[in-house]
């Protein structure tokens, strides 16, 4: 078989498209986690975004409005998580898992009338690349700038590292975290809508099929740094696309191994960067997943 039959540009386009939902969802979750909140409901928010975006795009015949609706729906579901964990102080891990189940079920319910319907075609810039691809990269840049260079970003990180100190300095810990949670939900919703409006374009129940969990893994893989999230998403998306294309070429690559590779790499990276070092060296926000109770 002939490797030259692989068009590198087409391959690159597929890779970028495949990584885009992951970049959106993981970038949102990164901001949430940097504020000290662990939201395991990414999968649920993605699928809600997928169906809300699909439904709105079909109703208005506008993919752009679909994406807006997806962001709103993702943020709304995330705020439900925010209400439960930040105001009612529920356990974040349990609430996040419940959010995923709730999102999958609710999306299936909303999606009943939408199977077999075609969404309005999203504008493609080139090949499989649509506007969400460059926007995703812009988002990564913006998140990096926000966290590393801006004062609000510094405050958000402070809340994530030590919420008691941030509270003592007079920062509204709960409000900041709710804002981060809503942002994370909106991003996850947009990632989901990219699946249902551009990548597959169709609505099928459970169509995220674990992308939300991969996004969560990427955040850890990236040790909470935006640039590495992009790299991680390319790696995850790239390995998938590459192995599918190599197979189409007729190169018998162990498909099970290739499917496993990104997860193995995540474990490897975790082992390498955490070997003999503290949690701080890993880059995890110190207050990640801890309950903040101002009255306590």
């Amino acid at each position, binding site marked *: 078989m002939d490797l030259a039959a692989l068009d590198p540009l087409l391959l690159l386009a*597929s890779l970028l498209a495949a990584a885009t*939902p992951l970049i959106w969802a993981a970038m949102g979750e990164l901001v949430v986690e940097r504020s000290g909140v662990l939201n395991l409901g990414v999968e649920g928010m993605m699928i809600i975004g997928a169906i809300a975006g699909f439904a709105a795009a079909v109703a208005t015949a506008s993919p752009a409005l679909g994406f807006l609706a997806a962001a709103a729906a993702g943020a709304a579901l995330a705020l439900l998580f925010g209400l439960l964990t930040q105001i009612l102080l529920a356990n974040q891990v349990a609430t996040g898992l419940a959010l995923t189940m709730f999102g999958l079920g609710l999306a299936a319910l909303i999606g009943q009338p939408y199977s077999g319907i075609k969404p309005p075609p999203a504008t493609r810039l080139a090949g499989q690349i649509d506007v969400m691809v460059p926007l995703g990269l812009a988002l990564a840049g913006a998140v990096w700038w926000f966290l590393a260079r801006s004062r609000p970003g510094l405050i958000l990180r402070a809340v994530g590292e030590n919420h008691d100190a941030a509270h003592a300095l007079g920062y509204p810990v709960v409000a900041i975290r709710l804002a981060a949670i809503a942002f994370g939900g909106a991003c996850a919703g947009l990632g989901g809508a990219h699946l249902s409006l551009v990548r*597959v374009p*169709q609505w099928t129940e*459970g169509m995220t*099929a674990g992308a939300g969990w991969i996004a969560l893994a990427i955040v850890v893989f990236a040790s909470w740094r935006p640039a590495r999230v992009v790299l991680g998403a390319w790696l995850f998306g790239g390995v998938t696309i590459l192995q*599918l*294309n190599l197979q*189409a070429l007729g190169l018998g690559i162990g498909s*099970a191994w290739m499917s496993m590779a990104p997860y193995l790499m995540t474990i490897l990276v975790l082992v390498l960067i955490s070997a003999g070092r503290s949690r701080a060296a890993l880059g995890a926000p110190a207050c990640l997943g801890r309950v903040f109770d101002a009255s306590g």
Partner: protein
Amino acid sequence: MNITRRTLMAGTAAALALGAARVRAQAKQKIKAAFMYVGPVGDFGWSYQHDQGRKAVEAALGERVETSYVESVPEGPDAERVLTQMARSGADLIFATSFGYMDQVIKVARQFPNVKFEHATGYKRAPNVSTYSARFYEGRHVIGLIAGHMTRTNTIGYIASFRIPEVVRGINAAFLAARSVNPKVQFKIVWVSTWFDPAKEADAANALIEQGCDVLMQHTDSPAAMTIAEEKGIYAFGQASDMREFGPNARLSSIIDNWNPYYIARAKAVLDGTWESTDTWGGIASGMTEIGGFSDRVPFEVRKQAMDAAIAIAAGRLHPFTGPIRKQDGSPWLAPGETADDATLLGMDFYVEGITDSLPR
């Protein structure tokens, strides 16, 4: 559950009163039937068709059956938990509808000897475990004929899930049929290592199209490939379900799994107390494998040839695996005129000659 227990107790009392040791199971007034699916019921493919079967059971038996289902159960340890839960909550009959549930079914069935289990596409049975499957390869033969005629690039893409006999058999059947009408046909095969992941299925479809495929076949559960085929203006076939609405222009025909009659019969058998462990392998003849309507894009002669093949298969006049056929490595498999026996088909783990892909390890 209460009714069941009472019926059983009454039955036991009657048997004791008569002094007769009756071994035969008692007829029941009402049963609970539980269904376990590998994907969501809304996948519009494999799991969707099984759920249609569940609804058919409800429609046919009405008050006498209560059905429930659990969807998106991964193959592996989770299946054992769900099966146990189903058995504990009083199910009389459990349908486990994916190959990868096999060992879990056998294990849980041993713990609940009074519950009847039905395992789709597997090969391990027990006194309270039946297996059933459809001869999808008969359908693959028919759509393989159509694909061989319809491809312009002589390159047919095949999205495969896992290396199990059912999938390998389907590829071989489709390939042999396509080659029989078009000697230049090549298959490009992509293994996606999942039954249901629309994004990955779509990516696989795109990869195949970029490599020159103009007809797609799939052995995965979602209509993603059909949607991509429609978008790219090439052809595809509905899999498990008709999938017409996902590719009005792309869809040439479909292989439809019809579980309804089997599910109704098995539920009735439990009601009547006549259920026995069996192995059922239905095909076009019994209606378990159906060929969906042909698209207008398929020329009349091709439609006729495909229809004739389906009729001949149903009548037992045509076997999709009829020699001479060699294995991929060139070693002989079937002599001229010889047909494959079911045992070989059920364990098929080799490609036939002419397929250039190599099976994943």
